[in-house]
């Protein structure tokens, strides 16, 4: 059981107003102590750890194959993403430098600082399943804008 030593060690730390000596009667430990003991038992590995995984040689090789395939798959995906991003960067750079030539006024506005910009909270991280109301259609612009 989890009572034994952990409990004794804990006793010396609990509130001085409580019963200090470790004593177990018919009802068991006092509730506060019991809570600490069970809290410690949740975090400690004692008797809760499973057996070590021991794969046979064939399965070990298969597992290695799976992990290698996964890393290749991930790497390809990441590289694709990076390439796309690089393309976006190039096209943006080209657009802005062209704008600078075409119309300096528009360029000034397009090249302003954007510190303090915030994503709206409505742009949410996708969930596994959609909400009941998928889209909010009844939007009215605020009138005081003008």
């Amino acid at each position, binding site marked *: 059981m989890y009572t034994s030593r952990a409990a004794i060690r804990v006793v010396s730390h609990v509130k001085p107003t409580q019963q200090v000596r470790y004593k177990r009667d018919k009802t068991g430990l006092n509730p506060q102590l019991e809570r600490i003991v069970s809290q410690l038992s*949740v975090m400690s590995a004692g008797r809760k750890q499973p057996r070590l995984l021991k*794969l046979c040689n064939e399965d070990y090789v298969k597992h290695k194959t799976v992990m290698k395939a996964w890393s290749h798959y991930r790497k390809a995906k990441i590289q694709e993403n990076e390439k796309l991003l690089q393309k976006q960067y190039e096209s943006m750079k080209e657009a802005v430098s062209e704008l600078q030539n075409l119309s300096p006024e528009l360029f000034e506005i397009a090249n302003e600082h954007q510190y303090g910009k915030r994503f709206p909270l409505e742009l949410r991280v*996708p969930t596994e399943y959609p909400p009941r109301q998928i889209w909010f259609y009844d939007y009215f612009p605020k009138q005081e804008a003008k």
Partner: protein
Amino acid sequence: MTLVSVRSFSSSVSLGKAACAQVKPVHHKVRIIKKNLSPRFPELKYPSHDIKSPKFRPYLTHLDRVDHHYHNVLESDLLLIGYRHGQQPIYGNKRRHWDMSSPYQINRPLRKPKGQIVPSQTINPRDTGNIAKLQSISINCFVKDAKQYPAMAIGATLQLQQITGVKPKPIYAKTNVPNWKLRPGMKMGAKVELFGRDASQFLSTLTEIVLPRIGEFNGISNRAGDRYGNIAFGLTSDHIKYFPEIELNQDSWPNLYGFDITLHTTAQTDADARILLSGLGLPFVGSERIPKTLLDDLTVHPYEN
């Protein structure tokens, strides 16, 4: 006189040997890992990602939806927002090289930066390599009363573990304050640093379940941040009860412990970090102060080192 103490089976004994260690220079370039040459504990020699290692834990068990959202939507938007044509690097104060006028300067650590002790980062113009990304979330739960009732530190540790699903590390008091009866080495709470999917999981619980239910929470202060893209805020013990892991098991939690959350990002400035975090569903309030040097980034700054 310093003596070398050697641990033997029965006790520690002092050897009549001076404490003088010298690393002798070798005559080859092969790196030797002593651990691998010993026949003991073969299973501990496997790297932790090897399934034979006792440390092995599978790390990707579900699709990380926050990460996917970041790569699908936020990353390219952040690139567009942060880009300024003709932006110049703002050089940080770096450690300086020695001029090598004396042979004793070989192998010396670099000199301290001019005028300050801590070197600062260079802020580079935006490109695809420096788009802000959430790196990790660290949660720090310091319980003041733990000095009086050490059991509270245990409760705080378990609370963190329940909320994050990651094993926390204990925090110990570092200083000795006799008036507060604080001694170094007292267990004062727990901390945990979350990476990858654990961080995403915690973040979505925070933004989707916890923060919306806290009445007085309007957002993270726009003044929060450490200048280098790490934003921190705190939750009090009253707010903790909204975490579903705690809420569903309220009987076991007569007292809860508030904690500080630090969001570590790779952003070069706090302003960039705030834009990123707003995209991940964290609101911000208050007026923002942008440093003058940041606003003046089109002029060329000289590199002085």
